[in-house]
């Protein structure tokens, strides 16, 4: 195995799959924070969505109903966050912490009550999961050198939510930078007083931002439980919400950069699963703990401003009090 084994197609394929929930959660955070609402509750929203999507998919046998349930659960938590941080002008960080614990506790509690399987859902089979989609001509083109295998293995053969997540990147860019709503959303995160003066409701805009965040977190959670894995297990988000937060800072709150950041972090997760490849490629053993901690270390370095400065939206974290 040489150095290029590090970029083996199977590793890259895993990268795409592991990056998808990170990307969705990262874009979710991007909407919220661009609108001036810090959200460290991404983790909790994903977890709630993962559970409810798996639970409903298991009960109804339809993954689409599961997806809807997951998004709904995530939206409920978003509403709590909005209520606390917009309506009652509470501390957004504390609200986020509370939401994370709420989801961590409630999912296990309800899972135990509904399924009695030690805080997990039954394994999803058949229509209860998002199946991989084979893109057109994947079979036919797989013999074409270089491009063929890349198309057949890396680009084709993911579940639909992977493609949805990828499409969300240009979508987010378009909404934020090419629509009136996006302009206002960015303005409300930088200078809510100016938006208010222009006669646009700060509260409505911020609730919209938090709502979009809820939807995207819901899809991310549903993908975890019904696409990446077949069912919900306790604490299955395993810090992904925080890695997404890290990616958001890494990307400096920009959609395309969010894609690259989450792909990088997804790659780190994927390569951590294959210590044999790392050792073969680099000739020495890299501690798996170092790979696990890498996203967090990189984020701290970025935050410290040694590699370009990460400047959050100016009004982020501040409740807006209307001038009287």
């Amino acid at each position, binding site marked *: 195995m040489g150095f290029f084994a590090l970029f083996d197609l199977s590793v890259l394929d895993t990268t795409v799959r592991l990056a998808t929930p990170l990307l969705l959660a990262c874009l979710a955070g991007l909407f919220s924070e661009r609108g001036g609402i810090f959200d*460290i509750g991404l983790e909790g929203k994903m977890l709630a969505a993962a559970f409810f999507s798996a639970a409903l998919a298991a009960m109804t046998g339809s993954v689409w109903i599961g997806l809807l349930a997951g998004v709904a659960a995530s939206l409920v938590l978003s509403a*709590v966050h909005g*209520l*606390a*941080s917009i309506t*009652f*002008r*509470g*501390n*957004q*960080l*504390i*609200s986020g*912490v*509370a*939401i*994370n*614990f*709420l989801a*961590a*506790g*409630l999912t*296990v*509690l*309800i899972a*135990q*009550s509904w399924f*009695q399987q030690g*805080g997990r859902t039954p394994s999803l089979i058949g229509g209860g999961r998002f199946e991989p989609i084979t893109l057109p001509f994947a079979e036919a083109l797989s013999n074409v050198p270089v491009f063929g295998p890349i198309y057949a293995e890396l680009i084709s053969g993911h579940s639909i939510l992977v493609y949805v997540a990828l499409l969300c990147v240009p979508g987010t860019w378009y909404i934020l930078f090419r629509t009136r709503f996006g302009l206002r959303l960015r303005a409300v995160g930088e200078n809510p007083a100016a938006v208010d003066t222009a006669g646009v409701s700060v509260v409505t805009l911020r609730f919209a931002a938090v709502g979009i965040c809820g939807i995207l977190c819901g899809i991310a959670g549903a993908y975890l439980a019904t696409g990446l894995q077949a069912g919900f297990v306790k604490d299955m988000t395993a*810090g992904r919400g*925080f890695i997404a*937060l*890290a990616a958001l*800072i890494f990307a400096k709150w920009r959609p395309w950069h969010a894609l690259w950041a989450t792909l990088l972090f997804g790659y780190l997760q994927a390569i951590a699963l294959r210590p044999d490849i790392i050792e073969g490629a680099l000739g020495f053993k890299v*501690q798996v*703990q*170092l790979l*696990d*901690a890498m996203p*967090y*270390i990189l*984020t*701290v370095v970025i*935050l*410290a*401003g040694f590699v370009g400065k990460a400047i*959050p939206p100016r009004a982020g974290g501040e409740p807006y009090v209307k001038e009287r």
Partner: protein
Amino acid sequence: MDVMPKWAEVTLVPLISLLLAAILSALVILAIGEDPVAAVKLMVSGALGSTYGWGYTLYYATNFMFTGLAVAVAIHAGLFNIGGEGQAMLGGLGVALVCLFIPWPHWTIAVLAAVVGSALFGALWAAIPAYLQAKRGSHIVITTIMFNFIAAAVLNYTLVNVLRPAGSMDPATERFPEAVHLPSLHELLAPFGIAFSKAAPANVSLVIAVIACVLVWLLIWRTPLGLEIRSYGKSQRAARYAGIGAVRITMIAMLISGGLAGMMAINNVMGEAERLVLNAVEGAGFIGIAVALMGRSHPVGVFLAAILFGFLYQGGAELALWTSIPRELIVVIQALVILFTGALDNMVRMPLERIFLALRASRSPKSTAAE
């Protein structure tokens, strides 16, 4: 002038928040088909009905006092330290190094060294986020979250690759020597003729935690440094105008905070497990947030809230043992307490303030002027 009298501020607001959290928790228990009244009875008898129960309640409470004080000190400086979990993990590492590599003649000296070691490691782990906040403007909440994860990786690496005894599969250190065994409440109370459960893990660290509460109170309200910390927390601009250095206060407050979180390790690592295991902290760092919010960042409040959470923790364990309600119920209660006392504070406060305003208006205007 404040709208609410002081007594209402310190008692009514947290109690109403707690009541709301309790009602919602009861609804949750009902929703999963269990009886909330029976659950509370079981929790009370399990956590407070025997010295064994008390021993566990006080053991958990000791952990939460340290982490609660840690969060409280940071809050006084206007900083939100979410990193108690990671700081407590590193504190455990400090305690393990002190206990394993130095031959102590007696536990009394060992515990002093362990306090220093754990506080040093905890403070060190808080120092980097503090420095980055003070000097580089990186948001301390995000950096402390990141440092929790990095701490977990560091601890994992150290236990698996460095401190694990040869031949053992378990990622944990070997047992600490007998000389550093901390006396449990059973051993402490026996000379006074008080019978206390032998099996319960509450130990002399409880005394240290109470001393820490007193010292934090002295520091915050009775020293010039405490005044500076509080001024900085109330208004950074005013503090700067008064000549209080932002970098200095941020660093000092976070070092104290991290040190307190780290000191939790003398209870759970040195006092209970008597070796360092991977999951030693068990979320106590995060419960510190709920404890500090509930206790309004006052040492007395933190002490009471820590005992309340100790009760919830032990009661929850009993529930999980005897009913089909899983332990995670406590996580839900903890989340609701954080939500109501922290984030939805205004939801409780606004109607209360309106009531007090109405009360004041109904009294004669003369007495209002005299106040």
